[in-house]
């Protein structure tokens, strides 16, 4: 029985990302002046979860061999929306949360429809739609701000700790994986998403529902970006239409999926890998802080680590025997 060998190989990218994250985080916690305490973990988890949600969103689209440059803008837009409608009594605020997620789904569905029926390249379609989403965010929040009766109870609960130790944001990540990612991965649509990314022609010849697969990939990406946006509202109690921040989240989400073992050529990888990729990427930034280095070096340092990680993925190109295959 060599089953475990294949199962391991399939999850290689995810496991490498996990190992990278654990190593970096152990280094971080050991050097942190406060040590490995619940507080340190909670702060890191809240920051990491934001990127993790957007990275999961990016994963869906990247698996189809596309790219979603609007993810950060959906994140920004839904954050602004959340700062308005997660307000009032707890039941109304919960309804508001649902509204934020519905808005995310709608943004994603719009991306999907443009890519499928507009037959545009994902990169162009999502740059355009991202600009629209940012426009909506700016319309909602010309200045950063919050609602007078923002429901901070829900926000505090979602960013707090369970049993005094486990950060709620990690629980939320885990719940989302269990409730959405795993069923998706094991659905026929999920399999079609992998198939489309791996070889769209073969998927077509096999009679798979290509359009449905792409539609759900983009729609779920919208949903996950809005979970991130909602979380940003929980953390900050407010909304801000920050263009630079949205762009940064888009680019970091791509970096995170690559670190997490998701192939930009499509068809390979997992959102769980993307979570660890995101957490690892965040930790890289935080390491500079504990080593007392100038924060100005952060982009340089993150870039070097990312480049090294990507290089290991490119190693398989050495096996190519027909150079024309390089261009396919």
């Amino acid at each position, binding site marked *: 029985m060599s089953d475990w060998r294949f199962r391991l190989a399939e999850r290689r990218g995810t496991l490498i990302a996990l190992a990278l994250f654990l190593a970096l985080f152990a280094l971080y916690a050991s050097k942190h002046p406060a040590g490995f305490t619940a507080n340190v973990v909670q702060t890191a988890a809240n920051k990491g979860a934001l990127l993790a949600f957007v990275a999961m969103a990016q994963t869906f689209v990247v698996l189809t061999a596309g790219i979603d440059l609007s993810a950060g803008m959906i994140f920004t837009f839904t954050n602004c929306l959340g700062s308005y409608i997660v307000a009032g009594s707890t039941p109304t605020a919960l309804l508001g949360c649902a509204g934020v997620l519905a808005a995310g789904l709608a943004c994603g569905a719009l991306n999907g429809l443009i890519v499928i029926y507009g037959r545009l390249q994902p990169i162009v379609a999502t740059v355009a739609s991202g600009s629209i989403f940012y426009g909506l965010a700016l319309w909602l929040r010309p200045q950063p701000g919050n609602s007078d009766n923002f429901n901070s109870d829900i926000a505090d609960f979602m960013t707090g700790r369970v049993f005094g130790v486990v950060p709620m944001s990690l629980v939320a990540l885990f719940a989302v994986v269990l409730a959405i990612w795993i069923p998706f991965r094991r659905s026929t649509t999920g399999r079609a998403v992998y198939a489309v990314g791996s070889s769209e022609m073969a998927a*077509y010849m096999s009679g*798979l529902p290509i359009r449905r697969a792409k539609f759900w990939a983009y729609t779920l990406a919208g949903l996950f970006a809005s979970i991130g946006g909602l979380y940003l509202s929980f953390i900050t109690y407010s909304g801000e239409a920050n263009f630079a921040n949205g762009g940064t989240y888009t680019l970091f989400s791509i970096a995170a999926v690559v670190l997490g073992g998701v192939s930009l050529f499509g068809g390979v990888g997992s959102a769980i890998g993307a979570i660890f990729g995101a957490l690892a990427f965040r930790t890289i930034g935080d390491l500079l802080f504990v080593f007392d280095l100038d924060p100005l070096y952060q982009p340089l340092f993150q870039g070097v680590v990312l480049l090294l990680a990507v290089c290991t993925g490119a190693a398989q190109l050495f096996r190519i025997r*027909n*150079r024309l295959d390089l261009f396919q």
Partner: protein
Amino acid sequence: MEFAQPLLRMEGISKRYGGVRALEQAGLEVRGGQVHAILGENGAGKSTLIKVMAGVVAPDGGRMLLEGREVAFAEPAAAIRAGIACIFQELSLIPDLSVADNVVIDSPPRRFGMIDHRAQRRLAEEALARAGGEDIHPLAPVKDLPLSRRQMVEIAKALARKPRILILDEATSALTAADVAKIFAVLKRLRAEGLALLYISHRMQEIAEIADVCTVFRNGRNVATYEAGTKTLAEVVELMIGREYSHAFPTVAAPESDAGPPALEVRDLRWAERLRDISFSVRAGEVVGLGGLDGQGQRELLLALFGVTKGLSGEIRIDGKPTNIASPRAAKSKRIGMALIPEDRKTEGLMLPMSVRVNLSFAALDRLSRWGVVDRDAETEAIDEMVRLLAIRTDGVDVPVGSLSGGNQQKVVIAKWLMVRPRIILLNDPTRGIDIGTKQEIYALLRRLAESGAAILFYSTDYDELIGCCNRVLVLYDGAIKRTLVGAEITERALVASALNIAAGAEAGA
């Protein structure tokens, strides 16, 4: 076995690709419990017919009746639902998914709406066992399997669909003899179960063994249907080539016997199971043809000579000197002086939105520039010469090359490479899909180039071209040179017979 009504009936099916007629009023009747072989040379319309049946290509005209009811398939999924499964040549497997995922891809077993991995694995193992591929691990990713195993997975996948009509399009081309035996046992069982099997292969021995009925295609039409074993191989070859023959070729002058070493000499060339021990030489002034059925290694041979492949073994000699050709850039250098006119001008030959001028000078920029700056006068002069020499019909050299007709585009590709003044010219089916007039201009050009001392290696899927243009023809089969035809030996009959790897004039039944 005879049934009153055919399972599938195709009538008057026509299909054009641009100006090329792939199918012209073709028909076919497929019955349950039979293996129906489809024969025909390159471009006879077999593949298009299969694609129509499998919902990949929509016909321009004609109708298809499934059990007497008219059907039309808008996409492959529709044909699959109707019970028609097609085994393509490794085209329909998803490389990054596992074998089991692939085998049950169109309807995986589900529990509570989710794919049931245990049931999927069981189904996959059953299907693999039925196809005789028990050695394939169901969890292995398809991309890691060798070609022959992938083909077995493809067959298992088709069987898992429980089809009523199973189409095998060159499904055995990558298989070992042992695998073929296993597959045949499966096919015979399926035939006994009442399935209709369509079998397309260039291996005449296989057809003799398995087929019940044969239909021969030529020029997009079904020209004959007969019961297997009622015609000799010679008669079948006759049916495949027909009787039309056009003398549209310049006379072939024998090259002066040259005492010096050949311009290009190849010894024991091998590459990745696609090329096997290939040895031949081409002298200056000679046109050597590459024949055989499509996909027998001709394209790979040209790419290998042009420095595209890695891991090549054997020796290539240029003017008698062993030479290592590391890349297309090295191949076109003055030292080697090689040019490859590619098969697909749209992807490998031209930058379609760019101008004729820019396209023409791409390959020769080194020669046309000084200190890295293009010498516009030299460029214009060289381009004018080429436009004149090849009689390229264009509204000036600054229009996008994509606006030219197919034939003129092909002339631009050829001219682009003539700009580097090559001594060795490799051509990969350069006249595919272009009009007769341009074809004849290209034939004349090839002769002129040869007369002025170029060594030409010319792959064509059109046998008439090989007959009309070449001094010698090397016929490839399964990556090896099976036969070399010289001068008057180059006849259509000899080309077809050696392409099918049967001795010319063999009288065995088929």
